[in-house]
Structures are given as structure tokens and as C-alpha cells.
């Protein structure tokens, strides 16, 4: 197993959430990420059944583009809150190699300290992480630069 490099974006999320001590505001922070994710653009062509994560209560798509052995994820959901969560996950853990992805675990989700979220959603985030690791093992699901 490889050691993890610095996860700058992830640490940014952890830091921001640590500073927010009101659970309602944490919720709004996630909603805000979800709303802004619209602007980031998730190609319509990626919203296929093949890219759909199964077992979620709302639709979640995750794509994995591999460049120089590193995985760059993008995610989308039809629900804003889930879109916020999946955006945090894909931004946090993009740029890692397949071996580095394998090091990620439940502790990384817990450290985000999303106390305002239900257990069900935290389980959902774990499922997102596992899905990203699975995509990593398969060597990605979109071609570099392609929609």
C-alpha cells in the first residue's frame, strides 16, 4: 500500500467544517457546494446507467478519468444535498493513484465530521468512496478529455 500524499482539498473541507459550529449552517455549507457544482459542469453524456451508482436514494453519477495513472473524478446528483456531498468526495480524492485510493477508508469520511447529516447519508458517502475505489480498480470509466 502507498502512503497518501497531501489531500489539500480534503483538508480544506475538514477545516471549513470544523470552523462551522452550527449544524444548520453546516447543512447550508453542503447545499452551497451542491449549488455551485452546477457551474462546474457535469457532461450530460456522462449521465448514463453505466455511470450510475446503485443503491442510492437519489441518483448519483460518478466518472473517473485517468491521466498518467492518476484518477480524476467528477460526480453529480439530481438532489442538491447529495450533489454537495458527492462533489466534496470527488474533489477531495481526485489526483490519487489506484494504490493511494485503496488507502482511503471510513475514517476519512468520519473526519469530515458531518454531524448534521443522518447516518444514512454518512453511509451513502462511504458507498461513494467505495464506488470511487472500485472505479479506480477498473482503471476509470471515461477516456481522458472525452465527454
Amino acid at each position, binding site marked *: 500500500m502507498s502512503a497518501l500524499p497531501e489531500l489539500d482539498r480534503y483538508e480544506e473541507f475538514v477545516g471549513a467544517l470544523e470552523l462551522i459550529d452550527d449544524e444548520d449552517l453546516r447543512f447550508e455549507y453542503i*447545499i452551497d457546494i451542491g449549488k455551485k457544482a452546477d457551474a462546474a459542469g457535469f457532461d450530460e453524456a456522462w449521465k448514463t446507467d453505466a455511470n450510475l451508482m446503485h443503491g442510492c436514494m437519489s441518483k448519483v453519477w460518478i466518472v473517473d478519468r485517468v491521466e498518467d495513472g492518476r484518477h480524476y473524478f467528477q460526480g453529480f446528483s439530481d*438532489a442538491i*444535498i447529495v450533489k454537495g456531498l458527492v462533489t466534496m468526495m470527488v474533489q477531495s480524492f481526485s489526483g490519487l493513484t489506484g494504490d493511494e485510493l485503496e488507502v482511503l477508508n471510513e475514517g476519512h469520511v468520519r473526519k469530515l465530521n458531518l454531524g448534521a447529516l443522518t447516518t444514512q447519508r454518512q453511509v451513502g458517502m462511504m458507498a461513494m468512496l467505495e464506488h470511487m475505489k472500485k472505479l479506480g480498480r477498473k482503471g476509470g470509466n471515461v477516456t481522458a478529455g472525452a465527454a
Partner: protein
Amino acid sequence: MSKVTPIANAAAGDNSTAAFDIDKVRADFPILSREVYGKPLVYLDSGASAQKPRVVIDAVREAYESYYSNVHRGAHYLSQRSTDAYEEARSIIARFINAPSDKNVVFTSSVTEAINLVAASWGRKFLKAGDEIVVSEMEHHANIVPWYMLCEELGTKLRVVPITDAGEFRIEDFEAALGPATKLVAITQVSNVLGTRVPIKRVTEIAHARAIPVLVDGAQGIVHQPVDVQDLDCDFYGFTGHKLYGPSGIGVLYAKSEILESMPPYQGGGDMIERVSFDKITYAPPPERFEAGTPPIVQAIGLGAAVRYVEGLGMDDIHAHEQGLLAYAEQRLSAVEGFTCHGTAADKAAIISFTVDGLHPFDVAAILDRQGVAVRVGQHCAEPLMDRLGIEGTVRASFALYNNRDDVDALAAAIEKAKGMLG
């Protein structure tokens, strides 16, 4: 789907009426005084599972604390006490649904098990390849999957009665679904998503004129209105305890005597036999024939207490209270911009499934939750109905005897809050 029509007179359903003291009723439910996220709990998920009055909690505790033992087999005082209480619960339930005898009441773990019991026992014995089972488009999965499994096993077929865009069940559509091959009608009394009431008495009249037996899924029905199985003339009626203010893990299957007598056992084990040898086994008569093993003893006793509780309030008064609340909720929520109610049948129980324009139901439910408003979200175990309505899911507010106008107002305010946060 059309928006709900405001109802001019929603005066009924006020927090209290002469017949129904809602404040006193609410005080019977300890959980209603708690807060969620620092806000008063507004429990609008009783269609999934209802909260329990103190008398049920006390009955369960008393059973475990003072007389618990196994039933039907002990030669000692506690066993006799437990058996008496368990069988008394059966009598209470038989009286509640006006079954001709206690013998018509089989305890199961849930309405799901009740339907599976009928499918596995009656279905396997009396159905064959080519026969048809008629269900409606708005069934809960519990009244679809057991029949689908039977169809896979026997080669029987499902026929589906369509509903209208407003979620209405039309008798002419029902009649059109019946044919020479129809051997069973399995239908809900009240849709768990739309609240639509099915005119069961009319359904049984039509089906029986063609010698077709009728199974009623009463999971939602029995909660919102008086049920008289002899008046309905249904052949099977199943319901679950936890939606009727009783414990989870207990359900009831009512069936007519001659039908129960004709059915082979569903599961084998202790308590359901008369004589056992390695060469020959004879089975106990109903209802014991269908209650293999140690039954959910305390759950049954708790359900008996719950039934006594609702009887004490009066099912007619509960019905009137809830219908008044539904009228108020329809009026109040229709004023919310972008609100759409799915299911606007003229005769419906106090269940409101809705969406808000431009917002995902999961997002709405999440914000409602943060406001202390508990609702259900998703497909409500009714995926075929969602396909029919062309939607992926709804938020469902289901009302119970303990809800009041304040709950409706809190729901409306929380929806407005969700619109503000998510829009």
C-alpha cells in the same frame, strides 16, 4: 398531476372538537413531547409506523415485568397468565374487526407475512398455471411481490387494474380486469402513497358474483376508518400492528372459516400440530395451524392494548378528526407556490404525497427533518405506481389520530424554508 383544490370549509380538524380532545390525545403519546434538533417533533410519518400511546408501552412493560412466559405449553401460573393475555388480544382484535370468531384471527409478524402466508398456503393449493391474480396499480410491494413470486413458481399471471391520473380507483376499470381466468383479487383498502380509498364492499360484491375470493391489504385502511370484515365480506384481510399504534413484529391475517380450514400449514414447527410421529403428523385447526413456533407474545398483547385504545377514542371520531385535518392540510398546502399533491381522489385518507417544483424530494425531506418534521421520502415501496405517475418519488406526509393543525402549519412553514434554502 393537478394541484389540490382548496376546500372552502376546513373548519373541521381544528385542534379540538367536542368529540375528540386532541390535546388530551397527544398527551397519551410520550414521544410527542420530545424535540428533534432543538425543535418540537412534528411526526408525519405514521403511514410508515405510528407512535405508541402510554397504554401500549405500559402493557408491554407489564407483560415482561410481571407475567411473561411462553404460551400454550407451560404447566405453571405464568404460562397460563401469558396464554390468557395472548388469547385475549386475539379476542380484542376479532371484536375490533367484527370477525365471527377468534378462530378467524391468525397472528403473523406483519401484513407482509399475512400476504405471504396466503400466497404460500392458499395460493399453492388453489392456483395453477394460467390463472390470474388481479391487483391494482397502486399496491405496496408487499401486495405485489408475493404474487409475482407465486406467478414465477406456478405460471399464474398478474393483471393490473389501472388508476386515473388523479389516483382514483374506478369500478369499471376493476370489472374490466376480471376475466374467466381470474382466481383471486388482492387489493389495498387505502393506497399508502395516494391515500385513495378503494370501495372494498363493491369490489367483493363484484368479485363474489364471479366466485372470485378477495384479499384486502388493510395496512393503511384499518388505521383510518372502522373495519367490519363481515360487512366488507372480504375473504382475507391483513393488517399490521405497528401502524395501528401497537408494537412492531405483530400482524394479523383474518380469513373466513371455511377458507382457513381448507388451507395447508404455512410453516412447520411446534404449536401448530395435533400429533407428531415420524410416520404421520396431524395439524392443529386454525388459527394455531398457522402459528408455528413461539409467537410474538408480548407484541400481540401490545396490539390488543392499542386496539382497546383506538376503540376507546372511537374509530368514527378518529376518522372525522383525520378527515378534517386532511381538508385543512389540503387548503393550507395548496397555498404554497409550486406545491403539487399526487393523489386527489375524492375519497382519500389523511395521506398527502407531494413534490415541490424544481426541488428534489430528498432535499425537501432533509430540510423538513432539520425543522423537526418527520416525513417519508422516495418511492414508498410502490415503484409501479411511481412509474405510472411518471415521477421518481414524492415526499409523503401521513397523518394520524395525534396530529393537529399546528403540525400542518409546521409542515407548510418547513416547506417554505426548504424552498428558500434550496431554490
